[in-house]
């Protein structure tokens, strides 16, 4: 118990010191997280022989966008950027449509073999992508899908986790709403698109964001299935690009990284709250 004014003082000072300490730690971590990115951008916009130049001369003598021009024109990172956008758009769209359709069936329909099929979904969630890698490659090679968009995209247009997430979310939609629509004469397709889907906003945006993150940042599969210069995704192109210019041109390397980061960064800034909600949902719904 706090009795004397001295103890009150001690208590208040203790709290204040704790608060200052916490802010200090938070600030140091803030720097650790942000400095690499700031450094990347500042190195990208100057012509320099050393990446430490940013620290030795914080204010550059002149800014230049030359690195970005070079990266996008002569080094095919522009094409890779386009490839990544195409791949991500199709993977996100595929998951949003197909995962939610399957999730609807599991959540709201009774059918023969439901338990078995849902067990398969759960099972696949636990199996790493690695195990499918070799057969998938030999199979798609027979389809003549090596170095094609469908080769990169198709194995990823459905995710077991997405189906699971949508099932869990759709279970909470009241039966009455679906029954009422059915009594009004709506067919199965209308019920799904006009009643169920509009109620799934938060889950669908979480699914879309998670799938965008996964497909945009996907590395190993595109590296294996799309190895020609014009079919590389931005992540693969960046890795190879860095191998080539790594220690000879820092500005170019950093400009390449900046270009690869920008689309995700813009989406993150605009949809920040939904990102956080989406990630929280994966942790809670499990």
């Amino acid at each position, binding site marked *: 118990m706090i009795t004397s004014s001295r103890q009150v003082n001690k208590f208040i000072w203790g709290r204040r010191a704790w608060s200052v300490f*916490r802010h200090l*730690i*938070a600030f140091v*971590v*803030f720097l650790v*997280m*942000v*400095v*690499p*990115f700031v*450094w990347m951008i500042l190195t990208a916009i100057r012509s320099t022989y050393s*990446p430490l130049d940013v*620290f030795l001369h914080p204010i550059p003598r002149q800014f230049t966008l030359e690195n970005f021009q070079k990266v996008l024109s002569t080094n095919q990172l522009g094409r890779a950027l386009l490839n990544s956008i195409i791949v991500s758009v199709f993977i996100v769209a595929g998951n949003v449509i*197909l995962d939610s*359709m399957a999730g609807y*069936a*599991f959540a709201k*329909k*009774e*059918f*023969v073999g439901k338990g078995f099929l849902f067990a*398969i979904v759960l099972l696949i*969630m*636990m*199996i*790493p992508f*690695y*195990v*499918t*890698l*070799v*057969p998938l490659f*030999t199979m798609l090679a027979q389809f003549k899908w090596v170095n094609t968009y469908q080769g990169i995209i*198709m*194995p990823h247009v*459905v995710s*077991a986790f997405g189906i699971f997430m949508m099932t869990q979310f759709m279970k909470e939609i009241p039966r009455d709403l679906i029954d009422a629509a059915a009594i009004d004469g709506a067919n*199965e397709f209308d019920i*799904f698109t006009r009643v169920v889907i509009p109620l799934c906003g938060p889950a669908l945006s979480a699914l879309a964001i998670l799938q965008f993150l996964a497909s945009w*940042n996907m*590395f*190993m599969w595109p590296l294996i299935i799309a190895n020609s210069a014009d079919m590389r995704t*931005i*992540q693969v192109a960046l*890795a190879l690009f*860095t191998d080539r210019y790594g*220690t000879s041109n*820092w500005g170019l390397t950093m400009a390449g990284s900046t270009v*690869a*980061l920008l689309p*995700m*960064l813009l989406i*993150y800034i605009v949809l*920040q709250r939904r*990102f*956080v909600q989406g*990630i*929280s949902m994966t*942790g*809670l719904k499990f």
Partner: protein
Amino acid sequence: MNQLSVRLKKSLVAYGFLAPAFIVIILFTIIPIVMALFYSFRDWNFGKTSTYIGLANYQSLLKDELFGLAFRNTVIYTVGVVSGVTVISLALALLVNTGLRFRGLIRTVYFLPAISSMAIVAVIWKVIYNPTFGLLNYLLGKVGIQPQMWLISPTTALPSIMLMEIWRSAGYFMIIFLAGLQGIPAALYDAAAVDGADRGKSFLYVTLPLLRPTILFVVVVATIHSFQVFDAIYIMTGGGPAHRTEVLGSLIYITGFLHFYLGRASAIAYILTIIIFTISYIQRRLLASEVEY
């Protein structure tokens, strides 16, 4: 109509909704999983020979020095990253949960590395770790520490990659911990305060026990993720120096897609799968047995 056909007819609608997703799953996941098992029993060098050899791939892997090394490195990497990231992300979540100015901005920035691809992060950190031009040696030089060889030296290469991964994923798990923390009723802290618990005690006796399911979730997700590490290794060291950063993921890639020993690569993939499957299974059992508060 008998009862079964009524049930089947009702089922047809459901099958219609399931069909597109399941066609993709069967074609691109289930068939490959089964095929990989058959592959793993064959001595198959792409384009050349393919003969059935039973368990010989598995037997030779268990005796193989490089496989042993890759396995050891994967375990070291996983243990280091999982313990590091769990402690740090929990600490960050507690730090930004309450009573901090610019909380929104701070959370946004902490999460920034988590949205960046491993390719971007690996490229930036490769420059940070550069012995001559790197940021890390520059900063350490300021406080009088000798320059280190980070990714080049056999002793520091793997820990350097682990450190980078912890940096990258701490913000992600922080978000999950924050969601867990928000689920703890404030009344419990008030009750603990009334009973005379200080900050440390209320953390030990209220936060930690109630956060147990979240901690378990983070540990298992991070473990499964770390066991499959590939991108960072491939970009930063390629498994070197002298295989000191070789992991199971990079070994599958090299065996299958550089040397084209498809049977052997499938066997490694199956061993990896069994490990990850076991971890996931244990997780489900542990989570299922959780007591609700």
